[in-house]
């Protein structure tokens, strides 16, 4: 498959958050202001790309040759958890500035289902190594895009006069619905 199409599909048409419903927890939790949304997005994209590469290697050099498909979920989630820890330590040591910006988001990423979902999807679709990485990059940037857009909307919502029962999460979900509706316009992109 054309790499650019794969990228575009993961970024817009099959946006992880708004179309595939992966990573809804951080999408709702960390979209209150644009800056932290952007930080979370970048941190997630980074972990996604690394996780896609590592889980691909594990699937094709350990699980598949040894005939252990039933350990896939277990192996992937443990690898992702360990990876997040490593990335956290690495950034902490090498770049304190970046750590200050991204640090608080990193522990949250382990339980972001977008990462595990991405790894499993790459195996199910039989992507090559390059395809997996491009797929992860598109998905991560798509996640960032959705998060930043949502944060922008929610910053404006603060000044809106909203009926009491809808305050907070309910109105945010309805906005996400409208955003998702807008994204469905990308479906005819190619």
């Amino acid at each position: 498959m054309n790499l650019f199409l794969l990228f575009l599909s993961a970024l817009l048409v099959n946006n992880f958050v708004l179309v595939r419903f992966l990573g809804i927890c951080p999408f709702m939790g960390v979209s209150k202001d644009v800056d932290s949304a952007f930080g979370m997005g970048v941190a997630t994209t980074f972990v996604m790309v690394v996780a896609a590469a590592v889980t691909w290697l594990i699937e094709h050099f350990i699980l598949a040759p040894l005939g252990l498909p039933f350990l896939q979920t277990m192996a992937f989630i443990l690898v992702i958890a360990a990876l997040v820890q490593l990335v956290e330590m690495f950034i902490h040591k090498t770049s304190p500035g970046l750590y200050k910006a991204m640090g608080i988001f990193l522990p949250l990423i382990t339980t972001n289902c977008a990462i595990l979902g991405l790894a499993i999807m790459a195996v199910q679709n039989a992507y090559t190594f390059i395809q997996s990485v491009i797929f992860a990059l598109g998905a991560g940037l798509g996640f960032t895009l959705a998060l930043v857009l949502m944060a922008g909307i929610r910053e404006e919502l603060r000044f809106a006069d909203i009926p009491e029962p809808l305050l907070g999460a309910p109105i945010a979900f309805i906005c996400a619905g409208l955003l998702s509706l807008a994204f469905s316009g990308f479906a005819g992109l190619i």
Partner: protein
Amino acid sequence: MARLWKNFVNGLWNENPTFRIMIGLCPVLAVTTEAINGIGMGLATTFVLVCSSALVSLLRKVIPEKVRIPAYIVVIATFVTIVDLFMNAYLPDLHQVLGLFIPLIVVNCIVLGRAEAFASKNSVVSSILDGLGMGLGFTWALTVLAAVRELLGSGSIFGWKLAADGATTIGVMSLPPGAFITLGILMALMNMIAARQKRRAS
């Protein structure tokens, strides 16, 4: 006895994971196009929740503090894989529909959250009841959301055709935007009910 009962009903309403605490929302949105899928996903999660809560509670004195999170993840991943394999073998149609979201039960914050916040500190019986309550609270939330979407989106409920042939259904309700909007409106409804309860109590 009364305390055990409280553990159980806690998840059904007061701390309902979907409507009140708002965790584990990915499957809530993704698989709720038909009511039957909502029930299937809910029960699969309930099974994992009850089993992992029980085991984590049993092992709470054995597992060292420092490695507790990886240990919980291994326990949860084991039960998730068991559910995945059994559903694939005995309920292949449902397995096909839920697809990716069965392995993703591993990262459902409800499961790890209950292991860490409740099961690691409480007796086995309370932990099982807590898991059961949370799981069933999750299940009914999923089922209600799915039933609403199925009714509006496909004009049927649990696969039973209700709308007349050729009647216009609101197709967007089965699509992703419908999931977000329905959940938002249902949450607002729950908030209204809770607010009314509170007013009556005071």
